Structures are given as C-alpha cells and as structure tokens.
C-alpha cells in the first residue's frame, strides 16, 4: 500500500500552515503527520467529520516516551509523543497523527468529545505515562491499582524486579490498599438513589463464573434491570508492553502468545509481521502458507472455546465438552507440527521455527473431513435452539455507526453489517491467494455475532483445505540476515554469515530504526503491534493494540436497560479474553 500523498496535500490545504510540523516516513507506509498540540483537535475533527470519506474509527491511541530514543531520525523534538491512529473503512486507509509534547509530565487536551472511545485509551496513557488529558471526564488509573506509584511505561521506571529493590508491604500501604477496595458509588460516577428508586449495586467479579476471567463489573440495578455498568479492568495486567522493551526482538515472541491466549500463533503473526516490515524481510511462500494454515486452525480453536463457553453462559451444559473435545483435536495437530499446544510460540522473524513434519497433511486432512459434520451438529443443538435464540436475538445490539465509532473490529463489526476483514481488505501473509467469504450480519445483536463465528469456522476450514492442497515447496525461513534464528546450513559458508548467526543467537538481531504496525484479523478482532525500533536489539516501544480493549469499553453502551441474564449473554457474545484486555 503506497502512502497517500494526495491525502496529505488535502490536509495541508485545509489546515493552518503552522499546524503541521512534519511528515514522517514509516516502514508500514501509513501516512504519519506530526501536528502541533494547539491544532490537532481541529484536525481530528476535520478527519472524522468533514473530509470526504472520513476516518471514523479511532483504531488506536497510545503514547511514546521519546526521552531515551537513540535514533530519532528526522523527527521533531519531543519528550513524549501521543499517537492517534485513525482508520477509514471507506478509503481502506489509515492515518497516524503524532503530537509532540515537552516536559516530564506534560498535558494535552482530551478528545473524548470527538471519540467517546478515546476515554479508556487516554486513561491508559495517563496510567502508563503520567500524561494528563485536560477535559477528560474521568481521568483515573485504569490498569494499575489506584494506589500504585509511578507510571510503568516511562523509561525511568524499572522493568526488572532487581532494579526496583526488595518489595515490602508496610502496614500503611496495606491500609491504603484496603481502603481502595471500599466501594462508594459516587466514585464510580453512580447515583445511589433517585427520587423514587433506591438502586442496588452488584459487584460482578473479579471472581465470577460469568466474566471468563478477572474482570470486575459494577452494576447499578433497579430490580434486575441494569441501569449502568462500570467495568473495572486491569486485574490481568502483566506489563506485556514493558516486557517488549526489555526482551530482544526474538525472545518477545513467547510473550505474544499469551496476549490473546486462545489465539495462539495469530498473535505471533501480528508481531512478526510488524518486525519483518521494519527489517524489510520477505518471507518465502511456503512459510506464508504454513503461517496461514496454523493461524486459521487457531481461529477455529478460539471460536470453539467461544462456542462452548457461550452455551455454558446461557445455561447449556454439554456443548462446552464437545467443543473442547474438538479443540483438543486441533491441539493434536499443533502439537505434532509445533510441539506446543495453546502457546506454540512457533513463528519466527522471517519464517517459522521448523519445516512441517512428515505426514502433516494426513493429520490435518482427517480433521478437515471430520469437522464440518460437527459444525452442523453444533449449529443444530446450540444456534438453532429456541431458547438460545430467545436469549440472543435483539440482545446487545449496536448499529454500524456505533461499532465503527467505538473501534469494534472482527466478528463484532461484521455482525452489524460492515463487510470488513483485514484478510480481505489488506491481505497479509498471502491471504490474497485464498478463496473464502466474509460472513456479514445485519442486526449487530448477540445472535448475529454467533452466526458469524459459526460461519467463520467453516470458512477457516476452507482456507486450511486450500493450504493442504497447495502447499508450496521451498524454504520455511527467509535467507535474510536478520532472520532469527538464521538458517543453520548457511552459517558454515564463511566467517561473515557465522558472525551474523552468532550475534543473532546471542544478542538477538539488530533491527534497523523505523516503525511499523501491521493490523491482522485475529480471532477476536483486529490485533496489531505498533513497534518502534531505534536500531537496537530490542524494541524501543511495543504498543499492543488488542481487540478486547475497545470491545469491553463498549459494554456499558450495549447493556443498559437489559437484565442480568442478558448481561451474561452480551459478555459472552463479545468474546473477549482478559489477557487480551489488560495485556
């Protein structure tokens, strides 16, 4: 995808001459513009509402601590940079707006009045970097505990336990932490009573069978009717982005598996694609097809977990066992091919870890033959069940506009009628060579989301089938010097390749300075790694854009006015993973 210079020209024309500082060239060819902090809100307004074919989706919003960046290239002077990543579905194009900020604890105006979905992103930046957003309605920490000291993604914040000294829980700290646990509705922006109603507050989670993990929802109830939901997240936060800055490019791969822990290698794919983009590695065809094949198998596995647990959420007991049994069959395949089950960590920069084992095609073919019958069975017993329909049709519905506005991607977006799939719209890893359909819904309710996931499983199966039939010959790894680990046979040729191999194996590869993000269609929505390299052995900034974060942020909007059982139905149909939400 070439960079759109005409778009840049039209922005330039529209904007105040002084507003734009510079245009930055990035490896992913996304138009990247540095804008003055005084003018950026009007520019964002323009891009969202006024421009022809507008950028309606706030795909990502993050920040970068630039203070220790070694190679700033030609970039403007900045201590902290706030990055707005917008997507236009009509144009099939992205744009990145960067705002340079000076000072140690800078502040910038909030854009929650332009995009309500910026709310959580801005809270996250505040939490992680200490940047304040003026005009934000509720600027609290979001991932870290309320009494946490420091902002973890700042460069001076230690990443290793050994750098931060021994941990002692003093009585005073404990008291503060205990006090934080007390519940006062007003702090959550909730009213205790109106003139004629006393509300009941129900604390769902962090330990609750219906939340699928450590998620806390504070419900304001009038009887069983939900007046307001306030999600409290961060219980599953593990600092994956900080780890990205510490691990080498290569050793970060296993961390990615555990972001969306049901998606397995799809996470690897999003990460290595971004790294390869910066390094300029072209992956051989065989590696691409292997990657696609495994990614699609994992998509089926992930959707199977969704199917089983969703039926369970709705009180149906058996499908979860059938679904997990079938998922086990997929794990048998991944185990034979990669050696791992849920978290194979099997993709490598420039290819995959090994070639396929002998007899792999028989193994997968037997699954491809077996699974369609099971899918029909699931369809009959779960999706076509009357009680299932009564529990899902018309529940938790949102419109196309709302979905785009709130940054919904994946099956959730398609259920509302938007035909948008990164595999089709921006083919990566050779998806353009496969035949498959994108199922699209109409109503954007829980039922449509379920139908789409069911159909996606059979479409994935189609792709896997094509992979078996058309697996190209050739190498499973690129010959590029930055491929990690490099192909062993090549290292014995001369001292230069031997040294490259040695360095790649010990320090890890040195990826040239640059930045890139390649959004992929993960099982739950769009996943992307926004990586910034300053020419070191590890990334300077690893921003992980995950689908669950905007999806859960949207929860209050789509569950107001429903009842508690509906909330469970809505939660299940969102299909989030807590590790994906909190990272």
């Amino acid at each position: 995808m070439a960079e759109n210079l005409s778009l840049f020209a039209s922005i330039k024309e529209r904007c105040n001459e002084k507003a734009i500082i510079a245009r930055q060239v990035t490896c992913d060819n996304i138009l990247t513009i540095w804008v003055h902090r005084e003018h950026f809100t009007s520019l964002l307004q323009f891009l969202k509402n006024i421009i022809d074919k507008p950028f309606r989706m706030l795909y990502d919003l993050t920040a970068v601590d630039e203070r220790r960046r070694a190679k700033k290239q030609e970039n403007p002077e900045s201590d902290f940079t706030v990055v707005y990543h917008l997507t236009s579905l009509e144009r099939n194009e992205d744009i990145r707006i960067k705002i340079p900020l000076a000072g140690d604890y800078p502040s910038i105006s909030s854009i929650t009045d332009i995009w309500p979905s910026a709310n959580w992103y801005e809270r996250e930046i505040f939490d992680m970097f200490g940047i304040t957003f003026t005009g934000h309605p509720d600027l609290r920490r979001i991932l870290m505990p309320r009494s946490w000291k420091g902002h973890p993604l700042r460069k001076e914040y230690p990443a290793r336990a050994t750098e931060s000294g021994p941990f002692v829980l003093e009585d005073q700290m404990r008291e503060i932490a205990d006090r934080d646990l007390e519940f006062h509705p007003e702090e959550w922006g909730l009213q205790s009573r109106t003139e004629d109603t006393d509300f009941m507050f129900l604390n769902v989670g962090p330990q609750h069978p219906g939340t699928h993990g450590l998620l806390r929802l504070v419900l304001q109830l009038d009887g069983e009717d939900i007046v307001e939901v306030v999600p409290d997240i961060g219980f599953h936060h593990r600092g994956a982005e900080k780890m990205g800055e510490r691990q080498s490019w290569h050793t970060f791969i296993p961390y990615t598996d555990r972001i969306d822990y049901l998606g397995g290698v799809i996470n690897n794919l999003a990460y290595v694609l971004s790294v390869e983009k910066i390094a300029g590695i072209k992956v051989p065809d065989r590696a691409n097809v292997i990657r696609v094949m495994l990614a699609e198998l994992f998509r089926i596995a992930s959707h199977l977990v969704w199917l089983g647990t969703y039926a369970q959420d709705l009180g149906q007991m058996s499908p979860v066992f059938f679904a997990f049994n079938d998922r086990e069959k997929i794990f048998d395949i991944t185990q034979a091919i990669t050696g791992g089950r849920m978290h194979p960590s099997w993709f490598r920069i420039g290819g995959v870890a090994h070639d396929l084992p002998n007899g792999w095609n028989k193994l997968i073919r037997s699954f491809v033959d077996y699974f369609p019958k099971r899918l029909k069975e699931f369809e009959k017993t779960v999706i076509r069940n009357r009680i299932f329909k009564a529990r899902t049709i018309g529940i938790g519905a949102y419109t196309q506009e709302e979905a785009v506005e709130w940054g919904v991607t994946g099956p959730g977006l398609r259920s509302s009628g938007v035909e948008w799939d990164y595999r089709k719209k921006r083919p990566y890893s050779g998806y353009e060579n496969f035949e498959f359909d994108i199922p699209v819904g109409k109503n954007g309710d829980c039922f449509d989301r379920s139908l789409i996931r069911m159909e996606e499983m059979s479409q994935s199966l189609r792709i896997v089938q094509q992979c078996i039939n058309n697996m190209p010959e050739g190498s499973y790894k690129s010959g590029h010097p930055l491929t990690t680990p490099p192909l062993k046979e090549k290292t014995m040729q001369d001292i230069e390749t031997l040294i490259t191999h040695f360095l790649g194996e010990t320090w890890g590869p040195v990826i040239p300075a640059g930045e890139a993000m390649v959004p992929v269609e993960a099982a739950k929505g769009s996943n992307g790694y926004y990586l910034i390299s300053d020419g070191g052995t590890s990334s300077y900034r690893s921003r992980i854009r995950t689908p669950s974060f905007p999806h859960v942020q949207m929860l209050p909007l789509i569950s107001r006015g429903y009842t508690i059982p509906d909330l469970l139905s809505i939660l299940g149909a969102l299909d989030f993973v807590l590790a994906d939400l909190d990272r």
Partner: protein
Amino acid sequence: MKYVFIIAGVLLIPLTIAAGLIWVERRLLALFQDRYGPNRVGPFGLIQVLADVVKIFFKEDWIPPFADKAVFVMAPGILIATILLTFAVIPFTDNFLVLDSNIGILFFLGNSSLGVYSIVLGGWASNSKYSLLGSIRASAQMLTYEVFMGLSLVGVVMMADSFSLREIVEAQQGGWFFIPQFVAFLVFFIAGIAETHRTPFDIPEAEGELVAGYHSEYSGMKFGMFFVGEYLGVTLISSLIVTLFFGGWLGPAFLPPAFWFFLKTGFFICLFILIRASLPRPRYDQLMELGWKVLLPIVLLNILITGAILIYNSSL
C-alpha cells in the same frame, strides 16, 4: 411394627436413591458429553458418593458472620423435611405406603408450597445480594408454577374421583392417565422441573449469573442438604408423575409391583438428567411469560374439556 418398617423404608429409600442419583447423574451426564465421569472409587465409581458424603461431612461448615444465623441454619432443613414428608403419601405399592390419605394430592401441593420457604429464607438469611436475587427469582418462579401445577392435576382428580394417590393408581387399571390427560402430564412435568429448579428452569441458581443463587453462602453439610434436596425433589416429582399418569405400581404380573414403580420412576429421573444435558436456560421473564400466557390457559382448557367429557359420559 410393620408401620415402623414401612416408615423406615420410605425414609431410607428416597434418601438412598437421592444419594445414588448424584452418581447416576454424573455418570449419565458424562456419557452424554463424551467423557467418563467418576469411575475411580470402587466398581464403576460407585463408592464416589460415599467419599463425597464423607468429605462434605468433614468440611468446615461456615456460617457467614453477616447471616441471620437461626434462619440460615433452619432453611435447608425445611427443604428436606417438606420433601420427605411428601413421600409419606406416595404409594410405592398398594400396601407399601405410610399414609393412605384422602387428601394426598393436596398434602403434596401444600408441602411443595412450604418448600419455597426454605429457598426464600435461605437466600434472605444469607444476607448476600446474589442469594437475594436467587431467592427473589425462586419465589416468583415457584408461585407461578405452583398455580398450574395444581391445576394440571385437577383433570386427574376428576377422572379418578379421588385425592388419594392410592386410589388414583387403582383408577388407572383400565388405562394409564397419561393418554387422556396428556396435556396435563406435559404441564405437570414442566412444572415439576421448575419446582425442583433443574435446568432449564434453574434460574434461582443460574450458575453463570448468580454464582449459585440462593445457596451461594452455604457450605458443608448445609449445602449438602440443598444438594441432596434437589435430587430428593427429582425423585419425588418422578414418582409423582408415575403415580399420577403412569399407573404407579401397575404393570404385567411377571414382575413384582414395586419393581414396576421403581422402573418407571427411574425412567423419568433419567429424563430429567437428559434434559439437563441438552437445554440452555431461558430468561426469568421469558419463563414467567411461558407460565402465565401459555401453560395456564392450556391447563384451564384441559380442565374444561375433561369436565365436559366426564359429564357427557355420566349422562349417557
């Protein structure tokens, strides 16, 4: 002396069946769900129940400090007591029964209404929001379903011309009531599932939503009593279905009457389990809607038609 044996028998049999049911249910569910279920302790895992009982007796029986202690302790007892009392009027055979009461059916309906107290009080005394929501749901659900559970039996009473369960069975010698009273049978069965709050009517417990509903705060043997109470309820409803609609102990003479009774009851127990394995749970308001808008008119119609036919027949 004979009465003592019968009473002991009637007390022991349901309790043993209920305990055994835990194993049966786990094994059957496993069978339906492509897994093994408990198969380690003893032959076919039969002793598993015993191990569970031993475990549950030795568990810490914790009463939450915020609970209303007296009521909290009493609630599970009420459940077990009302169900066991009802077994007194169930005729296992024509001579193996504790009490041949001429108000047998009313006695059952009265007891099952009392059983609601156990759940409402248990949820209320727990002083926890999840329990409270569970017991609110339970009381609404039970009130709804009691109404047409009672009404569904009117047809049977009219046909047998008696409230005594023994006489109802004897009245079925010419043909089991489930044929003329098929609609009533279906309604009673649905109401029975709701009464025992089994899936798909396990709304008061609704594991995914309310954690465990009204018994969230219970532990140890008090929880065990709720647990066994559920199985006792299943046994009771199954045996009532058999008594009211499937000719009780009646059956071909080559096997003893008691055998027929247990065989039929066992069939319905398995049906309860199969239903649990296959259906999702409707929403609470959908359940009420089904009750008031569909089932109630149906049973009323059933009473009308049964009465009309009876009057027509007697006038001939």
